[in-house]
């Protein structure tokens, strides 16, 4: 089994502050971590490898500094890592990102299973998984809470469907997006860290992927952000004060008014 775990670098906090004087947005883009959902994808890939055999490839599209996060994935049990990094990839929306990831995964060779976190905590779109699966022409299942079995050309999972939890199987190769329920990520071991320094790591640009530059990065992105702003609080929350008894009285009164 060859398993691919997709990871994304995100800011270490999704807090956005307003400069009180200039009323501009303060975003700290400097400290970056692996998207928490993707840590579960790496962990699940390594667990599957341990139970079913095979290898794990960690892949990311990003700036050269993302190598550090990929090395961390290697330290946690991935066997090889690929970084897709090129000026041409900059400014990508989800369509261009999924195109580039698909090109990278194809270049990396045949695979059986692709694991993604269910979404990234900066963009919150949850679109890359299904878009990547479509670009690769393979089935996908979102919001997977548990992988029940893998083998004989299929994967069976428990996932959050529209009507609640459901058991679904997909033919391999397939792509799964994972919730945080799927596992608890392990810490890197000393042996792992040592191995990560020498494990196979490559960085590919647009030419290495023979990618169509018109479909990468800003050029290949149908969507454009035209404005960002800090949301205005829609309402002033009224804090009910007094003793618990007094607070409860006010709540009962409001309930009576609303439901009258």
């Amino acid at each position: 089994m060859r398993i691919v775990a997709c990871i994304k670098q995100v800011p270490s906090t999704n807090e956005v502050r307003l400069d009180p004087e200039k009323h501009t947005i303060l975003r700290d883009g400097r400290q970056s971590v692996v998207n928490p959902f993707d840590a579960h994808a790496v962990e699940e890939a390594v667990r599957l490898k341990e139970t079913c055999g095979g290898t794990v490839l960690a892949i990311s599209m990003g700036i050269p500094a993302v190598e550090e996060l990929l090395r961390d994935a290697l330290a946690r049990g991935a066997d090889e890592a690929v970084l897709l990094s090129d000026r041409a990839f900059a400014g990508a929306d989800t369509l261009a990102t999924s195109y580039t990831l698909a090109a990278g995964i194809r270049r990396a060779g045949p695979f059986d299973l692709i694991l993604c976190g269910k979404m990234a905590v900066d963009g919150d779109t949850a679109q890359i998984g299904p878009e990547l699966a479509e670009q690769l022409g393979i089935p996908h299942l979102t919001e997977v809470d548990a992988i029940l079995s893998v083998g004989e050309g299929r994967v069976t999972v428990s996932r959050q469907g529209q009507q609640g939890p459901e058991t679904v199987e997909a033919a391999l190769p397939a792509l799964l997006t994972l919730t945080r329920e799927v596992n608890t990520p392990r810490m890197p071991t000393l042996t792992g860290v040592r191995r990560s320094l020498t494990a196979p790591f490559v960085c590919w640009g647009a030419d290495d992927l023979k990618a169509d530059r018109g479909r990468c990065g800003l050029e290949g992105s149908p969507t454009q952000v035209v404005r960002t702003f800090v949301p205005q609080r829609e309402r002033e929350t009224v804090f009910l004060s007094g003793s618990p008894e007094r607070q409860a009285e006010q709540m009962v009164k409001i309930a009576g008014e609303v439901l009258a």
Partner: protein
Amino acid sequence: MSGLVIEKEKCVGCGACVSACPSAALSMEEGLAVVDGAACVLCGVCVDTCPTGAISVEKEEAAGLDPSDWRDVWVFAQWEGEGFHPVTLELLSRGRALADSLEERLCAAAVGCTEADCAPLLDQGADAVYLCPALPAEYRAEPFCAAVLSQLIRAHRPGIVLFGATPFGRSLAPRLAARLGTGLTADCTQLDIDGESRCLRQTRPAFGGNLMATIVCPAHRPQMATVRPGVFPILTAGRRTGAEIVTVEPPVLPPPLTRELAADQAVQAAAGLRGAQVIVSVGRGIGVRKNVKLVERLAELLGAQVGCSRPLVEAGWLSYDHQIGQTGVSVAPKLLITFGISGAIQHLAGIAGAERIIAVNSDPSAPIFAQAHEAVVGDCVEILEEMIKILEKKPN
């Protein structure tokens, strides 16, 4: 030329962008910001940071597609066996306004139901319903809907296609967007038409709701967006003259690649939650399992349904059919009282439609308070006991 553009006239040389840039691509030269094109990754942090709006990401649009060939506003009507997901009617309500401002038609696309089932779509103001009644048993609804919709969209060329940001829609829409090679904006909370360009302006939260972004898709069609349930109200509408149902043939497909083996749990109470006028909802802050009994007692006294956040379902304190949020039910009651719910963004997504929210939590900085009309900082159990005491004394 595409890339990061700094307007010299607007730059005041404050250096905010230089300190904010995560890629060290910006520097000051002679008191003005300059960008190193080779280092810039177009992340947009500086665009947000610049106090004078001097920085923007510019892009040259490749000519090719003529947006005027793509007309009408479409809504994916999510059929759920016995009726449409309520977000369908919400999207038709908003879609009607968008179609009116473009002077185009509003259409719905439905899969797997009968013509008679489509009456609510026509009653909600759709000019046309494209209906594929077939849903072959061997296919899961989602890949089958993707196939039907891609065929319909290629044939009819709608300018806009809207989906509910339900678990189903959030999986279907990106698959379809990639197939059609177009843009998709997730979880929109506002949709408007730009008067000049006639483009759909899609506004959505990012960074866990801490930042809003307005997004357009100028040179690709259709413009696709998902919208969280409960964001748009269902408006009264009437049947349009000449409104029609167009039945379409199912696509010819290769054998299915995914198969549903079992739905693990029945979700009877979910339907009750969805239509409930009053909901008492409980989260991890309730402390111990026996306190859930207090919530159930209060709900009984108020004639309310009991909802909860995901951690309680995971702990096994309440069944999945009580779960409110992105992966549970979206609710729109007249009154929602929450106890010990901190307000994770996934949970807040499910309560956006509530008309009045009273939140009780011991943590004054709980995010739920920003969404609530009335907030009570205090001990959930104490408040519950007091409320029950008062209501039990009352006649009726």
